[in-house]
């Protein structure tokens, strides 16, 4: 039996080849993915070179790269792209820093009381995105919103601020709501990473009389580098896709000042029914995301080595 259980690479490989069951087990997933994801992607690419409009009775025609040239000169597309980048990297960066600070603050605090505090600090992450949006929309109200009320009574502002109705303040305001909901994710993951640092490392640093900051900077941060990188990339990808918060708070407005690519594609496709043009925007965006996904996987491979 010893030969059977010592699984050298060669043995496993030759055995796997004779196991049709393993192949068949992946099959349902592959079939479903092919239908609900693979086919739509191919369809998107096909749509992106047509002038397909759901409201148009004429059959869609092949228009070549027309949608793409239109896109290159579309200021709303470029504005949405910029907003997507600001929204994503801004919120993820701030959330990661806040989560890191929280994780360091709460490090080594055990016992029931601290478990409760930890759980309370995590609650924002369990609030549905749409609820986050409406809650902040209510708090941001120009007249009667609690944020303005607090800022007015403490004298920080003199007049109510139209947070979500200002084309300059709306995007940062939505980002604050986003950070509120996302920071606990980093707190959770970085806390786990902190507790995984071997005791000996901390002990030997203490013997070397490392101060609190020296300990954080030279000992803990290097251990947190990869978890931080991976969780940031995960959140970057999920923020690129964030629709609920922005849509329920501002619908991309005022004007297009908080419009991201998701919001723009949604508006193109389901308000103007320009499926062809919306698909072209989608394809460009897909390409950019695939680059990010590729980076993510490179990081994963580095990590697993």
């Amino acid at each position, binding site marked *: 039996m010893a030969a059977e259980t010592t699984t050298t690479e060669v043995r496993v490989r030759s055995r*796997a080849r004779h196991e049709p069951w393993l192949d068949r087990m992946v099959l*349902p997933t592959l079939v*479903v993915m092919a239908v609900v994801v693979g086919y739509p*992607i191919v369809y998107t690419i096909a749509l992106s070179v047509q002038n397909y409009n759901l409201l148009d009775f004429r059959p869609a025609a092949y228009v070549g790269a027309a949608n793409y040239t239109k896109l290159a000169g579309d200021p709303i597309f470029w504005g949405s792209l910029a907003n997507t980048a600001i929204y994503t990297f801004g919120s993820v960066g701030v959330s990661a820093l806040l989560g890191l600070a929280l994780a360091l603050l709460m490090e080594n605090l055990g016992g029931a009381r601290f478990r409760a505090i930890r759980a309370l600090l995590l609650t924002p992450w369990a609030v549905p995105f749409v609820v986050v949006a409406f809650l902040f929309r209510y708090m941001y109200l120009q007249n009667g919103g609690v944020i303005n009320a607090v800022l007015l009574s403490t004298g920080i502002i003199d007049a109510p601020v139209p947070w979500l109705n200002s084309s300059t303040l709306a995007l940062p305001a939505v980002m604050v709501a986003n950070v509120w909901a996302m920071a606990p994710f980093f707190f959770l993951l970085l806390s*786990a990473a902190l507790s995984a640092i071997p005791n000996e490392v901390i002990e030997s640093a203490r013997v070397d009389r490392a101060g609190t900051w020296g300990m954080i900077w030279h000992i803990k941060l290097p251990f947190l580098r990869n978890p931080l990188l991976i969780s940031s990339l995960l959140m970057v990808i999920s923020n690129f896709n964030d629709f609920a918060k922005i849509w329920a708070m501002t619908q991309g407005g005022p004007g297009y000042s908080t419009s991201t690519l998701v919001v723009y594609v949604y508006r193109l496709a389901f308000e103007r029914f320009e499926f062809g043009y919306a698909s072209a925007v989608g394809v460009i965006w897909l390409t950019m995301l695939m680059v990010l996904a590729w980076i993510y*996987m490179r990081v994963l491979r580095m990590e697993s080595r």
Partner: protein
Amino acid sequence: MKPNLQSSRAGWLSPGNIARWVAIGFALLWSLAPIYWMLSTSFKTELEAARLDPTLWPEAPTIANYSGLMGTSLPFVSFFVNTVMSCLLTAIVCVVIATPAAYALSRARFRLAGTVGYAILSFRMLPMVVVLAPLYLLLLNAKLLDSGTGLVVGFTTFGLPFAVWMLKSFVDAVPIEVEEAARVDGYPRWQILLKVVVPLIMPGILTTGTFVFMEAWNNLIYPLTFITTIEKQTLPAALVLTFTGQFKTDWGGMMAAATITTLPLMIAFFAVQRSMVRGLTSGAVAGA
């Protein structure tokens, strides 16, 4: 627990510790104040919720906002049932399809496993909105638009690849020796999976299912796009759609609806919170 000089009793009131407590206090305030505001507003009358000088505590607490959800012209109960059903069904479908795939990808070491695995992972990162238009047309042609089934199909696009990767990490943790005895006795793979592996990774299956459920619950864009009859709508989409009508000024009612929308997700979240870190990190990390 690591020994920590700062938390020892002697240094309890040191400046460093006081600063630490103040910071933790601020963090708690920042995290909980909005949630408190939602709960407190949900017990206020429409008039009080719209006041220019907001009250911290409801002056005349009322449950009218909650009871109002039951008996209004809007079918809130069916929104709730629709959401629970479609999210639950999505979780079940994804886990059932993903478990054998996760097992096969974990146990097979042939070259294809890596390629297939990464193909599935890259689907996970796909921007949902990119497949929105074609998915809409697909459901239109399949006559699944405006149906719960269509919604489940939509949710599956992101739930399934996620479930495969998360479950794979749980299967990876099952030592291969556990299966050896059954293998020697000549049991086929699917029986080993069902009788040996599945019972062992049951916690993982539940965690994964809960995650898929939570993600579906959070999804707004698919119900908004694929469901056109208001009675068939999910809670998140219903909030957005009714806000322009019924709740335009009724923030108390809005916050009551928001609280109801939050509760199931909150329960699900705390049920899996312990295994969450492992699921998220290893599910994302223990790839190659």
